[in-house]
């Protein structure tokens, strides 16, 4: 079962929920099923701060970009006219190539009548694979300054096993990287805060899911017992499944600030997250 964990913006506890769900699946992992955590938040992968994986194997992620042979280029501009992303400019008898803007479509290379353009591999980030307890940990890292993390996610997803429990920690927001991350998942879990701002985010992502027709539910994070919860109201009004309410308490704050996984430290949280996982399995089978 593949579960994507999402949030409208950063800071709602998306990584907290993802990491703990993955670790809650470890007890099931004893029966030879996999427990896998995947960090697709490639601009800021934080899961490793909690999981601290060991035996890390790294591999680079490359994209193909054009290089120009200036001795062959005649300045006809067929390439730059073709490029929809404006990655090419022709200035003072030279072709300028903006690698960060290039989408690796390869069109310019085919179009150049002088065969002045060739392919070159350029590394935009790395993928790490390691192990934490019984959980296999994948993490995508986009190099700073790079624009799109999509190629990294495209390379991560095929590495995931089909059986067992796979938790995908998605990038925040609703950008292309999110679309890519949830493509093959069985269920989407949204983490929402109990604030008006949280509702705003929730409604944005909710609109997206309605269109995508993916099964989804919400966990309400940072809930205080006797306070109003606008996110909860929003869910009820729109008949969105509330999977669970995670209470906010000092203990969670302490464990988080020390980079510890709540499920591994505390029996109550272990039960809580195992319960969430159970519900997710049932929901995704519906």
């Amino acid at each position, binding site marked *: 079962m593949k579960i994507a964990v999402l949030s*409208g*913006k*950063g*800071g709602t506890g998306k990584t907290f929920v993802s990491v703990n769900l993955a670790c809650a699946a470890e007890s099931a992992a004893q029966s030879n099923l996999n427990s896998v955590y995947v960090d697709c938040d490639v*601009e*800021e992968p934080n899961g490793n701060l909690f999981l601290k994986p060991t035996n890390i194997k790294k591999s680079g992620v490359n994209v193909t970009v054009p290089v120009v042979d200036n001795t062959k280029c005649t300045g006809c501009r067929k390439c*730059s006219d073709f490029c*929809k*992303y*404006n*990655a090419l*400019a*022709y*200035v*003072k008898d*030279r072709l*300028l190539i*903006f690698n*960060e*803007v290039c*989408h690796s479509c390869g069109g310019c290379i085919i179009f150049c009548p002088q065969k002045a353009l060739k392919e070159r591999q350029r590394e935009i980030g790395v993928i790490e694979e390691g192990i934490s307890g019984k959980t296999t940990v994948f993490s995508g890292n*986009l190099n700073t*300054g*790079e*624009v*799109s*993390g*999509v190629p990294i996610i495209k390379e991560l997803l095929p590495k995931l096993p089909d059986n067992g429990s796979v938790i995908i920690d998605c*990038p*925040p*927001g*609703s*950008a*292309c*990287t*999110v679309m890519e991350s949830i493509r093959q998942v069985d269920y989407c879990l949204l983490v929402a805060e109990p604030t008006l701002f949280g509702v705003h985010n929730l409604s944005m992502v909710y609109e997206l899911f309605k269109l995508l027709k993916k099964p989804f539910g919400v966990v309400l994070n940072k809930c205080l017992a006797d306070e109003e919860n606008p996110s909860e109201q929003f869910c009820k009004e729109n008949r969105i499944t509330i999977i669970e309410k995670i209470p906010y308490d000092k203990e969670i704050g302490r464990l988080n600030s020390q980079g510890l996984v709540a499920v591994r430290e505390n029996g109550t949280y272990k039960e809580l997250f195992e319960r969430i996982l159970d519900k997710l399995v049932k929901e995704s089978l519906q």
Partner: protein
Amino acid sequence: MKIVIPAETKNKDIPVCPSFGRTPYFALYDTENGKYEFLDNTATASQGGAGIKAAQLLVDNEAKVLITYRCGENAADVLNAAKIKILKAQDGTVQENIAKYNEGKLAGLTEIHPGFHNHGGNQS
């Protein structure tokens, strides 16, 4: 010599357009004859790299000076390669900025902002 300024409409008496890559027009002022011409900015509809394309348009029209509020890194690379000077616009109309230029009162644009691309998306 030609000076360009991003302009919201084809009019020299309106304020300088705050955007560079996605400005609807560029006012092109010719110091030789004191005349204005207006270029359609073909980059406005671009999926990405609008700044690069807009800069290419200025290069192709042989501009020597750009007066603007903002300019992205990539666009600045194109403009620098073509030795087009980038000056910071001041509050006021297109024409007033030309006047300030003539008085030597415009400084170089120092903040070149990193690319602003609509994907990859950290929205926090």
